[in-house]
């Protein structure tokens, strides 16, 4: 069964909206209203397919027109040049869109954020020039007299509207299913923090690619359908910036990364555009664009995250989060592979001769140390000593230039973060960026997804992790209501949920007050007894001295001392390099 029963309310909603549109389209005979009615579901679907990737992963694309246009041209060319019916053409368009996504994705995923968004602009532009040059300035579908149905040519325009509604309904169902799946959560965790997602064991490239392919294939499908409805295709009409912009505007206006946002946007803005064009366009050309532009500007200033969230926030102010949400969340469907690992040795992590340089800067220089099971190892050093680089190398964000890293008796040098995570290497970050629109429990559940594929098991792990940090009762709380301390604990819980054997903590206590440090210390101190080994970077020396079993001191990328805290701190080299003369004089005065 693809769709679990508990998406009930949303399913009913999808059914109701689709039925409403279908009934309207059958009932209204005025051809002008019929035209508007047929464009709403098409544009809603375009926006939905854009939202499917960009909305959930946060990687905004300015090039969605590529897929829309390729779909349109595929259907048109197959029909006009080869006489292949659009019924088959649409299937080919779907595949063309998917293949194009794979190629475009593998090139463009090298970029992030704004750069990804802008680079995507290049593709539709390229195709416009190419198709113009090929002489395809305007492709018109020939009219078929025998068996027009076989070539998707219907006399009654309402058939197209119904098909459009059907396409929209399918895309809505798919979005709903993905939103509630493990895959959907993985996409959302990329939006939150791609590095954290990788560290939580998610293969972000694969997740992004899958989302992109789905979005591209469906985008091409709806592009092809749009061509069938209009019976004419021009490069600027289907590949122009306007198409990409429309997908973006409709979604952001309605609410990005939500099921209903694109539909809300299309239902408001598409009739508005058409109405303005019909009523005012001939009186004062351009006035419709001005009004449209002003409308979206005003709405976005009033509701910067889109209408959907604005409405929801207004409703939520009255009562707190409904228990229904919790119920829905618990239905998230996951599958399971067990990942137990046995280690036979006392040494859990061995770092041998690891070096890493950035240009001329030797960030790590022949670093050697080991971490034993169930100990707490502290790493200290002045700013720029290479501490965070060391963590990045350990958990696979960066590949060392030289040296070998052995983790639970495997040579793990050069393995990626998500592989390392799945064999038990967890990590927190200096800056925690929780998922603002998810509650406490879901934030932690993301961490459990990397290692566990069974729905109940993942939820258990998430709950256990929350219990370990003392936040077991706060599942439904929203992130905005958390204190600074609770945010740190949440970050810790998320790392714990991935069942690490070794946990790398990057300045977990930075910026906290004494009482808060105390609370975190207690949580961390308890971890070794539960079979979790800790490596921690920290500046709060007081806390460090109390917490750790052993210390490694880094300076200029080299290990200058290691051993018991008291001993290490007494070594003159350490005092010199790290604490300096001021500390010495202070210390002497005591």
């Amino acid at each position, binding site marked *: 069964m693809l769709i679990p029963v508990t998406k009930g309310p949303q399913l009913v909603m999808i059914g109701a909206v689709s039925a409403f549109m279908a009934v309207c389209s059958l009932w209204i005979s005025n051809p002008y209203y019929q035209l508007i009615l047929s464009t709403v579901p098409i544009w809603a679907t375009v926006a939905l397919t854009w939202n499917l990737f960009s909305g959930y992963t*946060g990687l*905004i694309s300015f090039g969605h027109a590529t897929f829309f246009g390729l779909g349109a041209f595929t259907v048109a060319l197959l029909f006009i040049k080869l006489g292949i019916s659009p019924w088959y053409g649409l299937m080919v368009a779907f595949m063309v869109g998917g293949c194009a996504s794979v190629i475009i994705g593998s*090139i*463009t995923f*090298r*970029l*992030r*954020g*704004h*750069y990804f*968004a*802008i*680079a995507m*602009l*290049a*593709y539709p*532009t*390229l195709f416009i*020039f*190419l198709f*113009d*040059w090929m002489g395809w300035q305007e492709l018109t579908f020939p009219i078929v007299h025998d068996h027009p149905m076989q070539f998707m040519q219907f006399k009654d325009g309402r058939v197209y509207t119904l098909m459009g509604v059907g396409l929209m309904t399918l895309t809505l169902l798919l979005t709903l299913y993905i939103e509630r799946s493990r895959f959907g959560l993985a996409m959302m965790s990329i*939006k939150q923090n791609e590095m954290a997602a990788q560290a939580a064991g998610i293969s972000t490239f694969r997740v992004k690619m899958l989302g992109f392919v789905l979005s591209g294939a469906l985008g091409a499908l709806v592009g092809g359908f749009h061509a069938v409805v209009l019976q004419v295709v021009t490069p600027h009409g289907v590949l122009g*910036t306007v198409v990409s*912009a429309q997908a*973006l*505007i409709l979604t*952001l*206006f309605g609410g*990005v*990364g939500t099921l209903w946002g694109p539909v809300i946007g299309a239902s408001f803005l598409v009739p508005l555009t058409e109405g303005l064009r019909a009523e005012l366009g001939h009186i*004062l*050309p*351009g*006035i*419709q*664009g*001005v009004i*449209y*532009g*002003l*409308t*979206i*500007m005003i709405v*976005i*200033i009033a509701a*910067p*995250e*889109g209408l959907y969230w604005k409405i929801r926030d207004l409703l939520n102010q009255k009562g707190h989060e409904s228990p229904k949400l919790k119920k829905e969340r618990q239905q998230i469907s996951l599958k399971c592979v067990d990942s137990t690992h046995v280690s036979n040795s006392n040494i859990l992590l061995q770092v041998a001769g690891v070096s890493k340089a950035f240009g001329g800067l030797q960030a790590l220089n022949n670093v050697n140390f080991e971490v034993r099971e169930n100990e707490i190892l502290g790493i200290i050093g002045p700013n720029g000593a290479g501490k965070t680089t060391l963590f990045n190398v350990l958990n696979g964000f960066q590949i060392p230039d030289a040296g070998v890293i052995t983790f639970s008796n495997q040579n793990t040098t050069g393995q990626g973060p998500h592989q390392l995570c799945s064999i038990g290497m967890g990590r927190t970050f200096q800056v925690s960026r929780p998922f*603002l*629109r998810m509650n406490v429990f879901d934030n932690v559940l993301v961490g459990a997804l990397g290692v566990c594929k069974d729905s109940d098991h993942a939820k258990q792990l998430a709950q256990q992790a929350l219990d370990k940090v003392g936040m077991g009762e706060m599942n439904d709380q929203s992130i*905005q209501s958390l204190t600074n301390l609770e945010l740190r604990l949440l970050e810790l819980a998320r790392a714990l949920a991935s069942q690490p054997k070794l946990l790398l903590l990057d300045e977990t206590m930075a910026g906290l007050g004494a009482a808060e440090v105390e609370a975190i210390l207690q949580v961390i101190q308890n971890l070794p007894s539960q079979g979790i080994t800790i490596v921690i970077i920290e500046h709060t020396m007081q806390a460090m001295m109390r917490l750790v079993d052993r210390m490694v001191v880094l300076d200029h990328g080299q290990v200058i001392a290691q051993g018991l805290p008291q001993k290490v701190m007494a070594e003159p080299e350490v005092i010199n390099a790290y604490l300096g003369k001021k500390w010495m004089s202070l210390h002497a005065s005591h």
Partner: protein
Amino acid sequence: MYIIVENLLQRLVTGIMVGSIYGLLCTGLGMIFGVIRVINFAQGELMVLGMYATMFIGGLLVLWLSVGSALGAYLAIFVVAAALGAVGWLIQKHLISYVSGFNASNSENQGHFAQLILTLGLSLVISNGALIVFGSSPRTVQSPLASSSVTIGPFSEGDILIFLNQARGIGCLVAIAVSIVLYLIVQKTRLGITMRAAADNPKAATLMGIDIEKSYATAFAIGTAATAIAGGLIAMYYPFHPYTGFEFVIIMYAGVVLGGMGSMLGAFWGGFTMGLVQQLSTYFLPFQLQNATIFLLFLVVVLLRPQGLFGKNVERA
């Protein structure tokens, strides 16, 4: 043989001239994008406003000062820079600031989504507003320079002759001069240092007593002025209409990304490369594919060197 060399040299020279003007265009955008981290879709429309402004103010100056139409147009550029700078300041201060910086720091994605919509809306309002006010027919800044040229050569015993279009040539010189001034402002002056600090780390900059809202507005004003000047220079040899912004905004962004975000110089050279490649490609390819080459080049650079030709920023890769 000589004809090939002559053709190539001719395109090279034209490419350098057009490239310099594109360089200034991209420098303006690079300021806004680099300092405020806002994707401004309306940059192309602001350029178009610069084009119309140069045309009208140039015309007025010709009447008032009874100077020649070419001199009037170049004098107009100073006024245009000031006027569009003020427009840019107002846009940042009273529109973008609602959805950027501290106002957006708590919303998901730091307000990036809202910024996109806002600037897209703005671009629609400006381009369609221009359609209402100025009509859809293509315009140019009238000046005799557009159709006159300077001859270089002859070289190789009279076999090679190169023509410099005067409108492009002077435009190129003005663009380089303005770019150098902008570079010096950003690198050397207090204003520039505060802007760079605000770009690098807004929170730390605030703690150092820098009014980042003011820095942002200044950056937006300077960036808009630079793009408007470049628009004015282009308008002297290229017919424009209310929707010309759409053509150019893509070239601008491709140039900025191509050059890399490390410095203003990157943006300039990115734009320069765009213009140069665009002109050179006309020699090898049919006219319709002229612009396709620059985007192909853009993609190749993205693939081989994600940080851009001159960029050092690693976060993007």
